[in-house]
C-alpha cells in the first residue's frame, strides 16, 4: 500500500529578510525541523520572492543539483563557469554544482518582484565537472498534459541533472484527470501545487501544498479548479 506524507503550505518554514521572502518545504538555513529534512533525494524546495533589483550575491555550491523555476518575473544568473543568463518565467534552469561553482541570482527588474522555486536534489555521483543547462518550455505542452521538464539524460525532454530524477509540470482545466506512472520502481513522487486545487490519489491539495507518495507505481491526478498547476518530482527514495 502506498505511503504518503502531507506538507500543508502553512506548515512550511518561513524567513522574511525584507528583500527575500522565502518559504521552505524542508529544513533550510535557520529553519530546522527534524521531521522535514528531505523526501528521498529531494532535499530543498524553497518558494522564494525577491524584491525589485535585489538578490543573492556570489555564493558557492558543490555536490548538489540545483534547479530554478521562475513563476513570475525574471532571474539574472551569473556563475564562475562564465554563464550569464536571464531565467524567465516559463524557463527552467539546472545546475550540477559538482566539484564546486560560485553563482549569483538577482531579480532582473527594478519594478516588480521575482517569484521562483529553487529545488535541490542530491546527486547520484559526487565531484562531477560542474555544468549548467537552461531551456524555455512550451506552455501548450503542459495544458491538460504532464510535460517532462527534467530528467537524468541529456537526450530526454527537459533539462538534465546528475540524478535519476524526473520532473513534470501540468496546467489543467477544471475536472481534468490524468495519471502519472513512475519511471523507476522504488521511486517516490513529491507533488507541489503551484496554483489552484488538485486531488492526488484521493488527497485534496491546495495552493503550495506538498504531497509525497511512495511504494506505489502510479498516482491519479484530478484538477478541482480551473488552471490548476502542478509540479511533480520523481526521485529515488534510497
Amino acid at each position, binding site marked *: 500500500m502506498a505511503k504518503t506524507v502531507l506538507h500543508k503550505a502553512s506548515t512550511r518554514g518561513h524567513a522574511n529578510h525584507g528583500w527575500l521572502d522565502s518559504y521552505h518545504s524542508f529544513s533550510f538555513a535557520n529553519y530546522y525541523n527534524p521531521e522535514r529534512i528531505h523526501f528521498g533525494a529531494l532535499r*530543498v524546495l524553497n518558494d522564494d520572492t525577491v524584491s525589485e533589483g535585489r538578490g543573492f550575491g556570489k555564493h558557492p555550491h558543490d*555536490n*548538489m543539483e540545483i534547479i530554478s523555476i521562475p513563476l513570475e518575473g525574471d532571474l539574472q544568473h551569473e556563475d564562475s563557469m562564465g554563464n550569464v543568463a536571464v531565467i524567465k518565467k516559463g524557463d527552467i534552469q539546472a545546475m550540477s554544482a559538482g566539484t564546486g561553482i560560485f553563482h549569483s541570482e538577482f531579480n532582473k527588474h527594478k519594478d516588480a518582484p521575482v517569484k521562483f522555486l529553487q529545488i535541490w536534489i542530491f546527486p547520484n555521483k559526487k*565531484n562531477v565537472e560542474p555544468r549548467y543547462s537552461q531551456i524555455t518550455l512550451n506552455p501548450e505542452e503542459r495544458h491538460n498534459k504532464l510535460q517532462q521538464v527534467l530528467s537524468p539524460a541529456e537526450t530526454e525532454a527537459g533539462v538534465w541533472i546528475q540524478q535519476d530524477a524526473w520532473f513534470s509540470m501540468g496546467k489543467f482545466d477544471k475536472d481534468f484527470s490524468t495519471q502519472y506512472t513512475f519511471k523507476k520502481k522504488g521511486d517516490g513522487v513529491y507533488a507541489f501545487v503551484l496554483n489552484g486545487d488538485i486531488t492526488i490519489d484521493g488527497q485534496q491539495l491546495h495552493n503550495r501544498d506538498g504531497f509525497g507518495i511512495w511504494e506505489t507505481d502510479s498516482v491519479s491526478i484530478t484538477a478541482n479548479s480551473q488552471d490548476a498547476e502542478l509540479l511533480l518530482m520523481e526521485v529515488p527514495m*534510497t
Partner: protein
Amino acid sequence: MEKIQILVVCSHQEILNTIIRLINNNEKWNGTGTDDIEQAIELFHQQAFDLVLLGSGLTGESENKLRKIFVLQNPEIKIIEHFGGGSGLLSNEIEEAFAGNKNGNFNVIDNPFK
C-alpha cells in the same frame, strides 16, 4: 561555554574558506579547515574535534581513509558529508549530526557514492 570544534576537509579552497567563515560566524562553533588529506589526519591527532565535515573534491578512497583513521582514534567522532558548498544546509547538517539523526542527509553514514 566551550565551543564545538569542527574539522572541515574540502579540496576547493574558496568553498572551504566560505564554510569556515560560516561556521565561525556561529558563536557556538569553531571551524578548522584543510584541503589536504594528510594535514587533516595530522590536525585530528593534534586536536580534539567534535565533528568532521567532508566537503567537495575528496575521492571515495580519501573519504574512506579519513573515516577509518578518525573513527579508530575517536570512536565517538561524528563524521558527516557536507552538501552544497557552504550553503543553507550547513547549520541543518551540524544540528542533525548532534541530534543523532542518521537520516538527516541522504544516506549520510554510509558513503552513497561508490
